[in-house]
């Protein structure tokens, strides 16, 4: 069931909400139990075959977690933790990476091992990671023991189950234990519905429209000229942002209907003026997880710059592989690791050379360079294979020449000779697609770079666990676009929700479901 489908919005959500608040009157356990069962139903709707796997994962990890917590800091606890973490990683490796490893061996050693063709259990990366954090914290004595029903709900909670945010038990379990969250509150509905609507519109109005112009360049094996390649890649750059941040907004909004706040997952990442900042703004809950449970345990920055750089590379390579079982994802992660190393080296060099604060232009250049680097890396992330990615990059650096649609050139009149002198060629057909690609990219860029984001708009009403006011980037019309439960806003959000609902007829999947 997709968040952007009729059955979810008009059946699942209302029934789950009503059951939750009605049963919640008889006790938190009933309300949480209902929500957990509904979430499992939500999961089973995708693929009932893996409900048992999900169930076994939850029961097993809860059992291990409880025993590890009781033996925290001891040898027994360490052994239990080792067994539990290994089991989780083996399961993930089997379901997600088995064919990738076999294929790699086949290619590297010229072997002919048969592939297993295992269907990926949806959300396995997310529910494995949330539980790994729980196990590690249990060993460190940081995880309090909660009722089993809250644990089930923490793992299965439908707003995050399929594609995150990557939740942390410390921020979720206490909320499931709060009496007030089992009572329907108008303010929660106002905020939740508003955030959900903004997310829905990001997905169905922006991301899905951009997809139409992004997909062709990644599926066409023929060489792409400079502007065509850039148009498609930029369309994908914004599609992915609006798709995933739209999904995250919908998750935050949906959860708020149940009184539960989720952590922020996006914070205008393309406004970042360096790559470290980008990772503090993009898929924030995954960055946080990788930092706390991979980068820091590897040694973080505690053993000198060389080791720090190595730790960054390892973290990003594994982070890349987490996104998908393919070498393109590894390259993507490797590129980001490299970007981070370069960024750290540059920052150190700047401070050693005694440079002061950056000017406004320096910041603009930083944003542009970061965006360029991120966009180039997306080419690997999105391309079905390495040759496609390299082919597109060739197009993006101009090796295949610069072309405009012939019909457009014919209408450019006075600058036509100038284009010719610059070596700009023309191609037949595709005029509408070319023009629409850049029109959508321009509109999306304006929203992503200049407008306040969802939590900035909602900042006066605690939209998420973190306070968005601490990390706001500059944007236009922030004051006018600050939400409050006034009639004007209600009308605007009603119209946006209507626009979103009218665009539901052909639901499209969210990009992050595949991870």
């Amino acid at each position, binding site marked *: 069931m997709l968040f952007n489908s009729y059955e979810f919005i008009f059946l699942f959500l209302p029934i789950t909400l009503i059951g939750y608040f009605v049963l919640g009157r008889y006790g938190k356990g009933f309300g949480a139990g209902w929500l957990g069962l509904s979430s499992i139903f939500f999961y089973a709707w995708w693929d009932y075959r893996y409900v048992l796997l999900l169930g076994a994962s939850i029961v097993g990890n809860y059992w291990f977690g409880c025993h590890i917590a009781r033996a925290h800091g001891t040898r027994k606890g360490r052994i239990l933790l080792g067994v539990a973490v290994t089991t989780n990683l083996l399961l993930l490796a089997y379901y997600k990476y088995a064919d990738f490893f076999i294929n790699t061996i086949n290619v590297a050693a010229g072997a002919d091992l048969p592939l297993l063709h295992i269907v990926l259990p949806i959300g396995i990366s997310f529910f494995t990671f949330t539980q790994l954090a729980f196990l590690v914290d249990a060993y460190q004595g940081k995880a309090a023991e909660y009722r089993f029903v809250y644990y089930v709900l923490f793992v299965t909670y439908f707003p995050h189950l399929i594609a995150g945010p990557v939740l942390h038990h410390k921020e979720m379990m206490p909320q499931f234990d709060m009496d007030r969250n089992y009572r329907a509150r108008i303010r929660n509905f106002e905020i939740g519905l508003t955030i959900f609507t903004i997310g829905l519109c990001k997905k169905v109005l922006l991301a899905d429209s951009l997809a139409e112009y992004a997909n062709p360049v990644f599926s066409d094996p023929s060489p792409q000229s400079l502007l065509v390649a850039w148009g498609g890649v930029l369309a994908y750059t914004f599609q992915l942002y609006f798709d995933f941040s739209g999904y995250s907004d919908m998750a935050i909004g949906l959860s708020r209907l149940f009184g539960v706040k989720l952590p922020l997952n996006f914070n205008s990442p393309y406004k970042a003026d360096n790559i470290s900042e980008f990772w503090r703004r993009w898929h924030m809950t995954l960055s946080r997880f990788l930092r706390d449970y991979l980068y820091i345990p590897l040694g973080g920055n505690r053993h000198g710059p060389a080791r720090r750089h190595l730790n960054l590379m390892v973290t990003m390579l594994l982070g890349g592989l987490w996104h998908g079982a393919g070498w393109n994802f590894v390259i993507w992660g490797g590129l980001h690791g490299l970007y981070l190393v370069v960024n750290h080296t540059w920052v150190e060099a700047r401070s050693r050379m005694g440079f002061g604060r950056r000017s406004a232009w320096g910041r603009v250049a930083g944003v542009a360079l970061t965006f360029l680097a991120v966009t180039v890396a997306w080419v690997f992330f999105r391309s079905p294979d390495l040759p496609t990615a390299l082919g597109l990059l060739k197009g993006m650096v101009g090796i295949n020449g610069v072309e405009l649609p012939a019909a457009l050139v014919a209408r450019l009149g006075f600058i036509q000779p100038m284009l010719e002198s610059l070596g700009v060629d023309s191609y037949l057909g595709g005029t509408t697609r070319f023009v629409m690609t850049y029109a959508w990219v321009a509109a999306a860029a304006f929203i992503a770079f200049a407008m306040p984001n969802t939590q900035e708009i909602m900042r006066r009403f605690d939209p998420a666990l973190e306070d968005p006011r601490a990390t706001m980037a500059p944007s236009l019309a922030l004051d006018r676009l600050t939400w409050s439960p006034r009639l004007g806003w*209600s009308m605007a959000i009603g119209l946006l929700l209507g626009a979103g*609902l009218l665009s539901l007829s052909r639901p499209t999947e969210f990009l992050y479901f595949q991870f």
Partner: protein
Amino acid sequence: MVRRTRYLCGLGVSLAALLVAVVAFNLVVDPYGYVGAPRIPGLNALKPGPGSELVAVKRAALARLAPDALILGNSRAEVGFDPEHPAWATRGLEAYNAAIRGAGLEAAVRMLETARQTQEPEVVIVGLDFLDFLTAPDAAIRPFPNATSESVIDRFQRWFGAVGTFGALRDSVRTIIAQHGRYPEIITDRGLNPLREYEGIARVEGYHAMFAQRAQENARAYVRKPSGIFVDGTRSSPSLSIVEGLVERARQRGTELHLVIYPYHAQILVMFEAAGLWPAFEQWKRRLAEIAAKGGPGIKLWDFSGFSDYTTEPIPGAGDTTTEVRWYWEAGHFKKALGDLVLERILLPGDTADAGNFGVRLMGANIDAHLRRISQDRDAFRTSNQAFVADTEALVERAR
């Protein structure tokens, strides 16, 4: 309480107002003709080409019009074969063009079976596209497609899609624009796509550009196609087995079935040869003739794909935006004018005074001679159009 719920009420009211406005607008304009709203000139008299709703629109029309003659195929048939050509009336038939652009034979069979739920067609014309028959040697041959009836949920979804979506709103707006455009993108009530928008493009960019663009796309597609027509170890393929099924069912039902090999422009024929597809092209015709022969006298296989005066119509040169091409929009899509000649040849045999080599009925006995003649015509065409042939071959070579 009212004060406390003011925000949610406001949201609900504006949401409802927008939905009601959109639904009302779509009901009045009725872009797909489902609702039967009054047709008002300047507002909704013409219906736009419905894009993704095409199948649903044509299915609904089949149920409404109950035609006794059907045109099936892909965009070539949808654009070229006029269901309102006088030849139909001469034969006492009411035809509908149920061809679906971009679709293969399976979609054609589904349209046929849909039509049969209302009215058993007496005459069926099926356009056969050689490219649909090129198959991977390990392709799975599936059972003959069954009729799919529209369930209550399907019907609800269709109606909902026609009134309660942005897609419908966009098509409503396109409907209104189409009434006032010079070259509107429409389909007729009988399912023909007159491709008027191509007329507009031809006026601005000329036919040369249209032929050239399509030729580039075709070249890229042809060199990537498999070059055989049979699945390994058989004399069949997914598409051939559908033709066998069509022939067998037409024989059982007593339907007059015309299998029509489209009149490809010579540019496409040269491309077939350059892409190494010519042997498969001939083998395909032989196999079709065998299959058609099994169906008895009611089943007729027509080949319009030779080098005739029509299919060798010259393509205007680069930069020429004024010369009109009489028979083609571009090499793959013939105009209604040529489609009319095809229909006359098929429906009114004997009426066409001099068909020459345009439209030959293939039977077991004449297939060798027919293929030989096309080969000779091809060689003659190559000799007299050397520059054109060289350019076309170069295009295919570049696409490799």
